């Protein structure tokens, strides 16, 4: 269970949000809404332990994520605003490296399968620089098909995706939630995911 208590975020001298409390349990989805610059990305980065909150704390199964460190990271998958795709590597190399960083051994076949599932059949060995925005996004999302983590934190995962891809991701998220996973995501698109419980958090 991920719990946030009394979070406050200050950026460049002004307060983005303060006194934020929520918790996400197994099988639950937390969707964060808010206009641009309301601190959605800042909040997600905080939940990943990338930034420290000014006040308040974030706990994972009742221990502070700061003290858990790598133990927490092994149950977390974060897909950020910047998708971490390298232009000079092929789609499949990008996927293998990002999985290796996440501490996941994937062989060539698993990686190929994942890329094909996400709709990149025949493009596995193209350099990322020749892929379109949406295709690059798919490469980064392909990791979700392989990881075995408990908590997914996704920052605008649907940007630049077409209808079929959005449908695919939706199904994947529903499957993951049904397995007892936890998802925290921001999105501007309306997406209708079924889950045990859906929380909405509005930042403004």
């Amino acid at each position, binding site marked *: 269970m991920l719990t946030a208590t009394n979070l406050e975020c200050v950026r*460049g*001298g*002004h*307060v983005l949000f303060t006194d934020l409390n929520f918790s996400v349990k197994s099988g639950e989805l937390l969707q964060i809404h808010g206009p641009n610059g309301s601190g959605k990305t800042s909040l997600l980065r905080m939940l990943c332990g990338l930034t420290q909150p000014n006040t308040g704390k974030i706990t994972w199964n009742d221990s502070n994520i700061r003290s858990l460190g790598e133990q927490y990271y092994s149950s977390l998958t974060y897909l950020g605003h910047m998708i971490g795709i390298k232009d000079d590597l092929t789609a499949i190399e990008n996927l293998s490296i990002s999985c290796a960083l996440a501490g996941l051994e994937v062989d060539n076949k698993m990686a190929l399968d994942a890329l094909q599932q996400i709709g990149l059949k025949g493009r596995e060995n193209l350099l990322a620089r020749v892929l379109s925005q949406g295709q690059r996004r798919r490469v980064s999302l392909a990791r979700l098909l392989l990881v075995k983590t408990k908590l997914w934190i996704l920052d605008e995962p649907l940007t630049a995706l077409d209808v079929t891809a959005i449908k695919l991701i939706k199904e994947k998220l529903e499957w993951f939630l049904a397995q007892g996973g936890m998802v925290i995501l921001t999105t501007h698109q309306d997406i209708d995911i079924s889950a045990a419980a859906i929380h909405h958090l509005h930042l403004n």
Partner: protein
Amino acid sequence: MSINWYKYAAPSSFYFLAGKLIPFFTVLAVILLVAGLYIGFFVAPTDFQQGEAYRIIFIHVPAAWMSMFLYVVMAFWAGIGLAFNTRLSSMFATAIAPTGALFTFIALWTGAWWGKPMWGTWWVWDARLTSELILLFLYIGFMSLQAAIDDPRRADKAGAVIALVGVVNIPIIYFSVQWWNTLHQGASVSVMQSPKMATAMLVGMLVMVLAAWMYSIALILLRARNIILERESHTSWVAELKETTR
């Protein structure tokens, strides 16, 4: 006792405490400076080897001592700020840097003035001089790094890392420079030639060292106060302060 300590560790209480202390240290600094200069230039006898030019050491030596000492103090506070996330100690480190750099510069400058009549040259690649020059580089690096980072919390922490790396390196640098200097058999001038110093000289020097201390404390407190105001400008107590002084 310990409660008192924590009270003044909050920037707001420190701000008012510092406000009371600054006049005290300023007055002390001025008195000691005048006394020290008087002893140095009128009371202390002329050196039989070096003539009148030696009198520059009354400024040079305190400046050189302070320059090294302040770097260690700065690294110490920066390290505390990094380890315990205490804002005030990081602000202190930031406040110390310009004063330290100023003393380093004075030490180099007066050293050159002293060197010209003594050694016949403005600059020698002596181990002390070279190390002092490198110290100036370290100060400048610290200050430019902090100046380049907009977010004060990040600036504090980044500055702390570089200050600590610097403080670990200072002995290594000093030792290597000394080794390098002896290897090259360069200008081997020992600065402290005269073993016996006249009492008046010693007193003058010590008074000047104290003056440098008081000056540094006053200036650092003043600068720390400014940094506090700047950083805490969004808090209520600064707003109240503006109301009352208006």
